[in-house]
């Protein structure tokens, strides 16, 4: 069994360890780093639950090897809120709009929308729907998620202006 050294920043903190080459980033984050907020659903890139942010881009953590994230900056759902614990506008909006029920898809929804809206918060309904078309939710029917995304986008656009 061939093990590889990896080091990366996860939610701003340095992390290093040894991993088998075949370990994907999602398993590394959950098992080696202990951040179980990233959920693994289908493990073949369809459900979007495992989405994390690597060097600013939303990626499927099941479709990237942990060794490929060597020297990268990774943000997971645990890194979205402020350090003092106050929620990010997306998290607030998800709560306000009943955008989650069982919560399995929520981490992937929020990391996807975080990357998407941070790049540009001024998005149409159509664009928001397209952005989360790669994230499957089996509970909500999506309408609450769209409402939450719009509420958060407005707040993020306002924060950008200030």
């Amino acid at each position, binding site marked *: 069994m061939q093990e590889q050294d990896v080091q990366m920043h996860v939610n701003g903190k340095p992390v290093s360890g040894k991993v088998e080459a075949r370990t*994907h980033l999602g398993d590394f984050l959950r098992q080696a780093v202990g951040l179980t907020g990233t959920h693994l659903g289908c493990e*073949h890139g369809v459900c*979007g639950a495992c989405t994390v942010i690597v060097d600013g881009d939303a990626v499927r953590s*099941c*479709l990237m090897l942990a060794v490929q994230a060597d020297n990268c900056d990774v943000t997971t759902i645990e890194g979205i809120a402020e350090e003092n614990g106050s929620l990010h506008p997306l998290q607030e909006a998800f709560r306000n709009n009943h955008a989650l029920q069982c919560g399995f898809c929520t981490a992937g929804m929020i990391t996807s929308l975080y990357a998407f809206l941070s790049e540009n918060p001024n998005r149409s309904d159509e664009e928001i729907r397209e*952005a989360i078309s*790669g994230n499957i939710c089996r509970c909500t029917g999506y309408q609450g998620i769209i409402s939450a995304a719009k509420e958060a986008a407005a707040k993020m656009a306002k924060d950008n202006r200030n």
Partner: protein
Amino acid sequence: MKASAFTYHKPNSLDEALGLLKSEEEAKVLAGGQSLMPMLNMRFVQPETVVDVNGLSELSTISFTDRVELGALVRQKTLATDTIIEQHLPVMREALKWVGHFQTQSRGTIGGSLCHLDPASELPMVALLYDAELQVASASGTRVIPIKEWGLAYMMPSIGPDELLTKIFIKPWDKPYGFGFQEFARRHGDFAIAAVGCLLKLKNGVITDIAISIGGVEDVPRRFIECEDELRGSNYDINEIKQRIVNPLNQINYLDDSLVTGSYRHKLLKGLLARAIEQAGTRTNSD
């Protein structure tokens, strides 16, 4: 599921990568990983060795002289925002709207799409429209393959186990010309049930040149030459076109699978093809 164990190499130069592909049997090339990783996780493939080419920065460039030169490692996200692509290959940007999701475009590469060669993949359809040439390298040298000779069979490109796709050369058409891309999938970003790309030149209301590529309906995406020949030289009249495409559409042996029937694909392709030609037609004069 989890991938089976493999030996991992991350070469820092093209020579090193080609040396590994020559010496290692059963090696798989890992580029963006958006097709290979699912296949590894589901154990559809269990390679002895994985050669990760993401360190080959020389394969990540986009340039233009008299043709667009794309490194095989250029990411789909980059293609979707690059100004050379916007200016010279606008139909590629149009097609990218249908390629996976933004979370997969951030890693997926053009070379990966061409080598995986899914029947429904959009980027090979764009390469087909422009008669792209693909440069493939191995330890014993390089060769250039015309795109029409690339797809040998279902998900089987014309590339050896010791070879690496390095560059894609695409010569744009002389302007003005119109372009269209139409696709239908059950959910945005899913594999196309049927897809059509089209480039179109008109002069005095007559089709002087046309390129059509089709995907999702057969084992390999391809140019729809029979239909191009039928339409070249005829009037640009959408009702007449709808009649003329019937016969070529009848000649296709449509995929019939657990998702949809062949006759459904036939009907879809008929509608999408007319729409793609019309979309291209409305753009021929806007340049």
